[in-house]
């Protein structure tokens, strides 16, 4: 850690790195701005305390019939982390024009049967799309773009819990010691958010150009539009408005429980105790079920494949491949690690997206 940088409130040495912009003193809880030129108010959503959280987990465990796994005596670790976020509100329009080659399939009945062919039409489109607006949560640190951080940001935007200035939050020592420092300045964060937002806007406008061109052709031609290729396009982002929030600290708990010789983790929202994801032991019955399913599926499909072998080789090959895939998949599930990871339904879409802004639409 850098030497000789001390808390301006109590004089204790501060735990900082070359990138630290602001950090909370682990001795007195005072927020120190290492970069005074970037100083501003910081907000925090107050977390539940350890006891309240354990009660929430117990209630969750009872509902899910996992009371034996997630009981208090099994707790190995309970970690609170407060993650700093900026919420960047970006709105942009796109001035677009394009030349699109649209493919139309036409068919005609003849004496010999139906004859089909493909024609093309070159169409010009132009217009202004938008405004396309989004609120993008950006973590004020590098390398933090993980599922739990994305999920907590998503929940904040949906639930809108109360965030208060850190100076009036009266946080306890257990809380301020777990506040991650702000390592990214607002300008860098805005640049990254703008890049993400405009990339999305460009992708949307490309689809708009294609749809518009195909729509025009459908209106004026007979036949069925089967696709299109953009020959030339111009997409210019215009009227971009960006505003950013003050830094907001969002709490998230990670809990680890020991049960049946293994460790089981939970990610829990720090302000209301909502479980975001958890691991539960995989039962022997489940494993046997997957194994049996694999055997039955491959037996049925493989048997049919064999039966059809001399009648239709292509169908037989197809069934054989499907049966092999079923056997492979089911056996992998049967032999997966001793526990299953469950992401609560509300957060599953966060798991599959790279950028949280794709999920949240303003």
């Amino acid at each position, binding site marked *: 850690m850098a030497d000789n940088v001390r808390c301006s409130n109590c004089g204790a040495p501060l735990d900082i*790195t070359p990138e630290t912009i602001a950090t909370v003193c682990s001795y007195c809880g005072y927020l120190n701005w290492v970069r005074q030129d970037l100083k501003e108010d910081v907000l925090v959503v107050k977390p539940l305390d350890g006891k309240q959280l354990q009660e929430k987990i117990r209630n969750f465990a009872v509902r899910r019939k996992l009371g034996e796994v997630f009981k208090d005596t099994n707790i190995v670790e309970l970690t609170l982390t407060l993650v700093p976020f900026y919420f960047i509100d970006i709105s942009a329009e796109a001035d677009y024009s394009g030349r699109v080659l649209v493919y139309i399939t036409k068919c005609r009945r003849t004496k010999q049967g139906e004859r089909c062919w493909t024609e093309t039409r070159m169409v010009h489109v132009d217009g202004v799309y938008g405004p396309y607006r989004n609120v993008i949560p950006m973590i004020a640190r*590098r390398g933090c773009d993980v599922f739990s951080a994305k999920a907590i940001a998503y929940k904040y935007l949906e639930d809108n819990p109360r965030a208060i200035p850190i100076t009036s939050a009266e946080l306890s020592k257990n809380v301020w010691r777990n506040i991650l420092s702000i390592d990214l300045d607002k300008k860098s964060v805005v640049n990254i958010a703008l890049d993400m937002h405009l990339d999305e806007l460009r992708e949307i406008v490309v689809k708009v150009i294609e749809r518009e061109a195909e729509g025009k052709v459908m209106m004026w031609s007979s036949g069925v539009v089967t696709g299109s290729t953009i020959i030339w396009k111009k997409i210019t982002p215009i*009227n971009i408005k960006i*505003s950013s929030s003050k830094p907001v600290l969002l709490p998230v708990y990670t809990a680890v429980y020991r049960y049946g010789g293994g460790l089981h983790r939970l990610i829990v929202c720090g302000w209301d105790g909502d479980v975001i994801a958890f691991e539960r032991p995989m039962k022997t019955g489940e494993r046997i079920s997957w194994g049996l399913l694999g055997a039955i599926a*491959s037996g049925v499909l493989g048997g049919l494949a064999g039966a059809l*072998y001399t009648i239709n080789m292509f169908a037989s090959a197809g069934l*054989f491949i499907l049966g092999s*895939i079923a056997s492979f998949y089911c056996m992998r599930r049967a*032999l997966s690690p001793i526990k299953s990871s469950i992401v609560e339904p509300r957060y599953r879409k966060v798991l599959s997206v790279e950028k949280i802004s794709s999920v949240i639409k303003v």
Partner: protein
Amino acid sequence: MGTRVEEKVFRCSFCGAEFSIPKTFVYATCPYCGTTTRVDNPDAKVDHFIFAINYDKNSSYRRVKDFALMQVGIAEDFNDNVDFDSAYQYLVPLYIYEVDIKAVCRGEVEKIEENEVEISIHGGEEAAHVVVIALENPPIDIPKDYSFPAKNRIYFKPSILREGVYLNPSLDPETVFEKIKRPYIEKTLSEAETACGKKYRFVDNSRFVGLAHYPFWIITCNYRGRKYRAIVDAADGTVLYLEYPISFKQRLKGLVGGIGSILTASIIGTAISYTLSSNIIYSAVGGALTALPGLAIAINKFSRSKGVYRYKPSEEAVFAPIR
């Protein structure tokens, strides 16, 4: 054995000490005062960092044990019969870059107020933080898509040289930088050309942040006379590689399960052909063959007494820690 590397004598620009370095080195770190300098330009300023070692060998060993207990088929008495054997710390060099590229359209006007920015017209932009291993052939197996966290980075201290195996960077940072920037530049220029044709101005504010060393532990433990190896990220405790013993009982169960499923599939296949009055042999064989992939998985997992875990970001995605 191996070819002898040609060395040369280098003089530290800070303390004046002389020491030998291989001729291929890009940077030289003085073993006496810890100052790092460019070999081809000793007067150039070098920002040299190290990622804070948050897990010592004891806590890393505990991580390995706890992680092994989560693996399917782990020997039942592993926790009771495993012993620590050895731990070596490796300091792997990384190059850190900030990519900040813009292609500004002619006529672009940017109005900046306290918390608001308005841009009239925009070309292209790319912003990214890139971390690259500065070695051609790292001696430890780090996953290709492993993301090195950039927090907890402190200035390099010479005392660290005594604690682990210090690896010197072998790649030229400028060459690596140009290679990294290329796709970002191409994307930025493509966006700008799509936005405003050729009427743009290229602005590259990218920079080489510096050289940073990242700590890893190679932990070896003993279980019933056999050694098992693990690689642990000493900055945040992630287990990248783990060997663990699989119990005989679990192996037997797994193999029996695999063979059982292939027999079941074969019987079902035979039953189907009997119902369809078709060729029994073909159906029985068809059923057995489609069950082979499942059997292969069971054999792969359980034919060896040593299981291997390799870190895959996609599989660890849900519970990856907030760093």
